[in-house]
């Protein structure tokens, strides 16, 4: 079993996710952005979309499906940018 299929890999991923969440909380506090309960799922869904898109691009490259990787990247970039602006505006809401 390779590193990327191991439980250790997912443990590290979990660690990174925790650190990123703590950092996000610290950053929003410093910026004076209020983070009520409903804002967290919005951010998490956006990050999940980004994560799945990146994994999809990686998988397509691994499969040798360059068209799928290319179109997947364009599609993801467009959706992530548009939704990113929306998420950012929601975050800035009081």
């Amino acid at each position, binding site marked *: 079993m*390779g590193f*990327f*299929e191991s439980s250790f*890999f997912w443990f*590290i*991923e979990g*660690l*990174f*996710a925790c*650190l*990123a*969440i*703590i*950092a*996000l909380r*610290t*950053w929003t506090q*410093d910026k004076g952005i209020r983070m009520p309960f409903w804002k967290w799922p919005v951010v998490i869904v956006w*990050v999940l979309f*980004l*994560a799945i898109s*990146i*994994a*999809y*691009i*990686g*998988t*397509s*490259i*691994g*499969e*040798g*499906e360059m*068209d*799928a990787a290319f*179109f*997947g990247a364009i599609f993801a970039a467009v959706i992530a940018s548009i939704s990113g602006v929306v998420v950012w505006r929601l975050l800035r809401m009081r």
Partner: protein
Amino acid sequence: METEEDRPRRELRVTRRTLIKAAGAASAVLGLSGLGLCGYQAGKDPDSYTGCEGLQGAAQSFDRKRFAVDEPHYEKVGPTRRADGRTEVIFSRVDVARSAAQMGKRIEDLDEPFRGYYEQHPEDFELDKQNSELRRKVAEDSPENRNRYILAEAWADAMGAVSPRPIGNEPPEISDFPGQMSRSPFKMKSPAATAKLIKKVSYEFGTVLIGITKLNHDWVYKYPSSRRGFAMNEPIKVPKHWEYAIVVGTPMSWDPMYANPNYGTSNDAYSKSRIVAFRLVSFIKRLGYAARPHTPGNSYDLMVPPIMVDAGLGEQGRHSIVITPELGCNFRPAVVTTNLPMSTDKPIAFGVQDFCKNCKICAEQCPSGAISKADKEVIRGYKRYRLHSSKCFNFWNSNHGSTGCRVCIAACPYTRKSNWVHKTALQVTANDPTGISDKLLAGMQKRFYPGPKPSDFYAATLGGKNASYREPPWWLKTEDFIEL
């Protein structure tokens, strides 16, 4: 008021917050990159070669019970008719047309049943006559083009090199039964336990898929396609002991399959399924019951796809091949008919009929135009998509490499690697009753996974470019190993 003593502590606090933010940002970047690399590994991993990732039943992992239905998807419309194995199987009739072409014979000069068949299907006569000429044209291609497939051809031959002995020409009432010396049938404890046992030993024998059904006599040829104990011109009276049908299936090697039509072969899966079926026959006979193999390579007395459907292994697609949830259509099946009492499996419906309605990728990619883009038709009393076998077989004679084509298998969106992307897509189509995801995913398939132009698959001397659906694997690239 802030004192001198407080200042360094405040600076330290600010530094800690900055550190947390920097570490979090770095973690986010590393975590996302890790997912990208993990995805890359999932795409590249040979463990995702569908059907080869686990034996002993591990690869037959789809939860069929959730999708079990009482009736199979094919619709019975009016009176049914059994297929004539002598004329409706392309391999049985094609030699007659070939020799007619050589001797300048017309349809009316042929003997029955071929005259009758070709009178009803004159287009098939014209197409079937062409394939020797097509083969000759392929052979005229430049040595550079022809030699590119030396390794693919050697590999295909090697894969077909091991084969059990044919079953001979005794009638089924003799050949299917254990020899004189064997005991009378053992009394089995229960049909359910027997089915479980048969499935387990079949996995041990090397199958990847297995399903069991009662044999519907409509699927047995009316006249045989090869002798195997039958008189060619007498209708087959379905033997009483062909009560159950056990269907097994094994996948074709992934990378060559994806480089069809000229690098893949059916021989590997044919050979494996044949061996499993013969082992199963031997096992069942040792229990004292009758068993008969119907195996790839024109040794069938029946049509396999509808039996696979009845046995709950999958649904028949537009290209006429059965689509299974695990292997898509990348497999070759074999059947064992027997009187060993077993509990049977139910057919399944996991969304293929709806998906095929608007997908049509196989029909668009098929070099010969054999796959219909139209709706289902009534064929021998059942509704299904038409496949023009004469057109298909002519393309088999129009390309290099081992015999065959299999582009429709490679292009079908259900034939994809066993990784999270394609497994998720399968679950989405199987569970979405609205049909929206079918349209979305079929559209994505066409845009994201395009194949070469259908005419490019032909040999250069027939106007093509010797294209393959995808790049061949490194180990079949002749030019990298042999001085040409």
